[in-house]
């Protein structure tokens, strides 16, 4: 399972980074930034529920889980 950001939708609301701080931080302007090297990082099994919650929390539905 991978986490994907649709950058054309993302408006830097930031709820995602609050709910999934293991994978995401925010940049100077509030947009999420992945902590690792991958653009669409893999989500560890232990974090799957948190990831789902983060996806649901995005007010503009910019997040998706792949696979």
């Amino acid at each position, binding site marked *: 399972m991978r986490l994907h950001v649709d950058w*054309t*939708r993302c*408006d*830097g*609301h*930031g*709820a995602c980074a*609050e*709910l999934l701080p293991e994978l995401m931080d925010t940049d*100077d*302007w*509030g947009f999420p930034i992945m902590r690792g090297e991958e653009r669409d990082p893999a989500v560890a099994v232990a974090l799957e529920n948190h990831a789902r919650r983060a996806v*649901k*929390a995005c*007010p*503009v*539905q910019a997040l998706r889980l792949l696979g």
Partner: protein
Amino acid sequence: MTEALWALGRGTGVVALGMFTLTLVLGIVSRSGRDAGGLGRFGVAELHRTAALTGVGLIAVHLGSLLFDPYAQLRLFDMVVPFAGSYRPLFLGLGTLAVDLLVVVTGVSLLRHTVGPRVFRAVHWLTYALWPVALVHALGIGTDAGSLWMDAVALTCVTAVTAAVGWRLTSSYAERGRERTPRLVSR
């Protein structure tokens, strides 16, 4: 019994108005992307949702109590079709209109992952119509209309919404509390 039902109807109505006022204000705070009161951005959004759904629940009881109250003489028809009632048709009709709007907004919001962000956002604008309609309904309907405490409640709600909407219209709102350029949304 009928007095109890009438009181329940009035009570749930007033509290629901308070809930929707809180919902609207929290919606504006949430949209701003700011972390308010240490709740976190996700917390503000969830509180916005909880207040809204609480309001919906209260309205369900509001409608139910009035439906079963023989004094109120509310028909099921009047709960869906506005301005056809016999008791204070204008203000009652506004209440019905508010319920209609509420059903649409709530339905689409609960199904937002199915309808997509554009439809969700477009329908959500209706909340700016829903709130004033509900407010005017509350002011003119029922036996509390014109009473001092009712006016005080209404004034509080109006003040809160005016302040929030006023803030929404300032240019600094878009920056989300940090220096950034708002995006161009092409779709």
